[in-house]
């Protein structure tokens, strides 16, 4: 049929050429994405060295020449990895509980209008609450240190996660809802196949923010709550400071920073993959 031929032709014209997977192009892309980061690290080291050379507060502020070898020593020593293990395990447990609590609350609040009227602003309020403020209360409530930390992590992370989900549900495009209802999606199926997938980008944003809160709460907790058992990163940092080992303390701070950056990168990657699949990303943007 002539119309079919014309239609196929038009389709092909409108789709344009396929994307090339040229290795040289990919390498250029990787370089374009990484050089600003390398430059930033170099700049930080340079400024750090300059501050060190001026001799300002030299007792506390050690230069990169002292700290980096110290960090290297730690990396080769088992104690740091054990501490990272202890801390990450706590982080994972606290975050997972916060994820479950936050998601459940978010879904209920989004679904049930009276609950939203009651809890909506409380959730936002909790989000602005500095987590350290919970600790005196948490330590008395849970005599055991570990439980106190998990409690504060939940108080910090769950509101962000709940809010992300609520925002996602609220911003489900009405046109898609109409389309879904026309198809016969109702009740639970409407949520499963339409509302929840549509909410995913906002939910991931909430998860990312929730992680930041959980991580901060955890670090604060390890600094102020005394826990029986093997030391985590916060405890290590605290004891280094008490021993006036400021090179060691700076090294731990760098480790904490790196973990934060790596986890953030994972969330950013997930978010970008999600948006790319939905066509919400400018294809010319790098990364």
């Amino acid at each position, binding site marked *: 049929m002539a119309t079919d031929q014309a239609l196929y032709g*038009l389709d092909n014209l409108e789709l344009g050429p396929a994307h090339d997977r040229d290795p040289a192009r990919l390498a250029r892309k990787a370089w374009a994405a990484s050089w600003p980061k390398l430059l930033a690290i170099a700049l930080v080291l340079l400024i750090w060295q300059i501050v060190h050379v001026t001799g300002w507060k030299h007792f506390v502020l050690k230069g990169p020449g002292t700290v980096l070898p110290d960090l290297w020593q730690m990396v080769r020593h088992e104690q740091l990895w054990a501490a990272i293990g202890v801390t990450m395990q706590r982080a994972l447990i606290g975050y997972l509980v916060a994820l479950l609590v936050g998601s459940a609350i978010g879904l209920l609040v989004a679904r049930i209008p009276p609950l939203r009227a009651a809890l909506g602003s409380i959730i936002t309020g909790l989000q602005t609450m500095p987590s350290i403020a919970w600790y005196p209360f948490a330590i008395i409530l849970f005599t055991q240190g570990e439980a106190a930390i998990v409690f504060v992590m939940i108080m910090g992370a769950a509101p962000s996660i709940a809010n992300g989900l609520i925002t996602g549900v609220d911003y489900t495009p009405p*046109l898609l809802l109409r389309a879904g209802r026309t198809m016969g999606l109702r009740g639970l*199926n409407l949520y499963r196949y339409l509302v929840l997938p549509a909410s995913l980008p906002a939910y991931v944003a909430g998860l990312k923010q929730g992680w930041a809160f959980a991580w901060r709460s955890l670090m604060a907790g390890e600094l102020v709550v005394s826990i029986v058992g093997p030391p985590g990163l916060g405890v290590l940092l605290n004891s280094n400071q008490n021993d006036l080992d400021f090179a060691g303390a700076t090294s731990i701070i760098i480790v904490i920073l790196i973990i934060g950056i790596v986890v953030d990168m994972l969330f950013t990657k997930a978010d970008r993959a999600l948006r790319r699949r939905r*066509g919400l990303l400018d294809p010319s943007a790098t990364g």
Partner: protein
Amino acid sequence: MTLRANELTPPAVTPPGASAAPAVRLTEVSKAYRTSGGELLALDRVSLTVRDGEFACIIGASGCGKSTLLNLVAGLDKPTSGQVDTGERRVGLMFQEPALFPWLTAGRNVELALRARGVPKAERREKVAELLEVVRLTGFADKRPHELSGGMRQRVALARALAQDADVLLMDEPFGALDAMTRDMLHDEIERICADRTLTVLFVTHNVREAARLGDRVVVLSSRPGRVIAEYPVPRLGPRRIDSPEVAKLAAELTDRLREEMGRHGN
């Protein structure tokens, strides 16, 4: 105002190939909305019968309640008074925007409509392939909506509407956002698909040529409130094109009728 409402409309001619049984019957349907400025009457005692297998086009200027009408027939909304009767027929709805789910591929979008009406998994795959073939999109099942052109997305939306196994297809300006060339080709496609499946179509448009090109009958609605003010049966003598003389003639007639109606709101 009341003069127009009393105008007699010619009895519609049964188009060849269509049975005389009504697929959609609206009886004295009115729909009012409460707004901040008081009550807004969107539809005023609209009576309309669409026969099985008929392609009925509805045109009207802004504010004629076209979308309201389709929502009522689709069962997404209830009339304030009057009756909407579609019997036991399944009603599918297509919008001006494709309204595809952006996280699903073209194939999965169509499949979800099958799943929603309980088609078992084993049959879905084959059905999806068949429906994509109907809209000439074989080979694009794995593309996501944003990777397709506007016309292709609208065809996926059509496949999804067909997947609902509808007897009555309601189309709300489905080609309004497409360029003229693509629209022209989709007219041929929709005509072929509807004839193959003996679908009853209620097609809302702003475009008089499109209405004259596609309809077995063109229904003109007045604006604010929406009333049926004229009906034009279009005898199907042979294949029609958007640039056929008889299409142009009817389009001119419809344009005059609509301008007259718009002029009524001019002062």
